């Protein structure tokens, strides 16, 4: 009559088989290939690469397939793989001015050197279900334009010439790596931006949104948003020079924000900055908003008690792999603790009832 937990091993193995079967779905339908996912769910792939912190579209697509499209699960698979890879060093700073832009827009200036490039965006689509997609079919090829030549200067660097926007301090210091060093507070801005780039898109979207609605409002304009390909270079000490090791797609957003000025400084614009793997402009903008909110101390602003200003709150809760693990772990057995709570409640109630009876 004692029915207990024996059989855990068998239960696990059966559960895994069932999971595999459900992942495959109806076996009469063709299996989705990793290449199809990489090509046709490319924005999911971008998110998995960014939050998984591993630029590898093929593995990201594999993770999406294996996780049945659960992107947080896919990110987890990529993180767990990434952490087993050796770390060779860090790249030279990526030159985003030299980006081969597929999209580049500014909300602050109508015409900009290098031009506005709308690119492949959902922005002006009408969100109507396209029932044609339910049938298989090819799409007509889009008309090809001529790529713009030459570097595209950052819009905010043009403002900078007049001293209207605050200078960013450049540094050759070795960047921190929060996958190799435990996060400690206060974190420097580079580490903060790293954490945000890996952070959960939804969490950062909500936090960024909260700054727009008055929780540490800082009046952001998108100075520039650019998406495209950049080369990654690494210095090889043995060679004495740096070599290109590859090309990655990134999204970069710089916001222009108001700054009241202080006793020593006249009013000046400030910036928020977001950079993330792949085409992920929602995330890049959100990071820039949160980055700017987190800079309150450095810019001499007031702590308004807003969530987006609280570095410890933001950084210790933005990682969805940590969050999902801890939130979901409460479904694991807690019999022992619960038993202890039961006994305590019984004891306290017994005492209270005895006291009442005695009175």
């Amino acid at each position, binding site marked *: 009559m004692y029915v207990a937990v024996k059989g*855990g091993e068998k239960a*696990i193995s059966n559960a895994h088989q069932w999971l595999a079967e459900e992942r495959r779905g109806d076996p009469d339908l063709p299996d989705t290939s990793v290449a199809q996912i990489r090509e046709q769910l490319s924005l999911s792939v971008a998110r998995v690469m960014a939050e998984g912190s591993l630029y590898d579209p093929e593995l990201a697509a594999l993770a999406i397939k294996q996780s049945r499209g659960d992107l947080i699960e896919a990110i987890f698979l990529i993180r767990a793989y990434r952490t087993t890879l050796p770390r060779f060093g860090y790249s030279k700073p990526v030159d985003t001015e030299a980006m081969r832009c597929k999209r580049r827009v500014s909300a602050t200036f109508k015409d900009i050197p290098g031009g506005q490039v709308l690119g492949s965006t959902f922005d002006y689509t009408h969100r109507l279900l396209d029932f044609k997609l339910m049938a298989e079919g090819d799409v007509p090829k889009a008309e090809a334009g001529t790529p713009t030549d030459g570097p595209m200067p950052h819009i905010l660097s043009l403002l900078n010439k007049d001293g209207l926007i605050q200078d960013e301090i450049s540094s050759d210091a070795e960047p921190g790596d929060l996958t190799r060093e435990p996060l400690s507070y*206060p974190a420097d801005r580079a580490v903060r931006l790293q954490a945000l780039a890996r952070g959960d898109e939804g969490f950062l979207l909500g936090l960024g949104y909260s700054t727009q609605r008055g929780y540490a409002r800082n009046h952001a304009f998108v100075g520039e948003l650019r998406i495209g390909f950049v080369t990654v270079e690494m210095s090889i000490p043995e060679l004495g020079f740096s070599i290109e090791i590859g090309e990655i797609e990134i999204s970069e957003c710089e916001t222009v924000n108001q700054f009241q000025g202080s006793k020593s400084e006249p009013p000046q614009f400030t910036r928020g900055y977001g950079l993330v793997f792949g085409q992920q402009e929602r995330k890049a903008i959100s990071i820039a908003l949160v980055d700017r909110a987190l800079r309150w101390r450095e810019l001499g602003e007031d702590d308004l008690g807003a969530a987006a200003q609280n570095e410890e709150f933001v950084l210790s809760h933005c990682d969805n792999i940590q969050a999902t*693990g801890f939130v979901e772990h409460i479904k694991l057995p807690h019999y022992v603790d619960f*038993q*202890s709570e039961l006994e305590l409640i019984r004891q306290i109630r017994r005492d209270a009832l005895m006291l009442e009876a005695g009175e």
Partner: protein
Amino acid sequence: MTTHSEIHDDLSFEDSYNFAYLDEQTKRMIRRALLKAVAIPGYQVPFASREMPMPYGWGTGGVQVTAACLVPDDCVKVIDQGADDTTNAVSIRSFFERTAGVATTEKTTDASLIQTRHRIPETPLTEDQILVYQVPIPEPLRFLEPRETETRKMHALTEYGLMHVKLYEDISQHGHIATSYAYPVKVDDRYIMDPSPIPKFDNPKMDDCPALQLFGAGREQRIYAIPPYSKVKSLDFDDYPFSQLRAPETCAICGADDSYLDEMIIDDDGGRMFVCSDTDFCASRQNEQGFEPAEVAS
């Protein structure tokens, strides 16, 4: 260009990973943290916790500490809620069987390293054993002060007034300290430490324990330790001394009246029975008494 599938095709899981999963550099980093933890009993040492192939909250801290301690001739026991056969204990045990090829056991006395979630075995541990605890929230002050920047300061200054006020308020409101598990302790008269969510019944086992006790919190990136034979005192007041807590019943299977018991609801009327939470302890008692270990239905 070589694709991933070409690279990975002929590699099995066992060939692709190092002994006990973690690479040697990571183990060295964890061992350094462990040494520091042993040198400063009860102090939470930050470490660069790695993403593990099981979720945070499932024991990633304990698994990393175990992986950093394991040697090939170790014999590993894994328990969750005191039992060797709970699903997560099964899963972690098979992880080490697979990645380290070490021997495993369910017998407390045969194990050289025991990884646990929520219990300390009833059978007293020895100098030849290491007990590794899985820790969800390593900071005993966390629920009184959410900011890590503040709690680290409080530990540095031994500023524990807040904790004593909380315990005092419990007594004035309930007549008891209203903490029944993860009951805070003071280690070596210095640091207040979270013993992980073990029932307070288990707290006295930590004091003067011959085994090395190691605590790993993966998500929170902290490691701490109690060296063998350390003083570990559960917080209390002179007029409200610490007391253990267990269901005042005996085990329905082995008859033990001094072990920690699980309560089970056995019928629709809320009928209950109590059995040992420590499955190995219960089975050994059954053996001693000469009956077959209960063949338990699933």
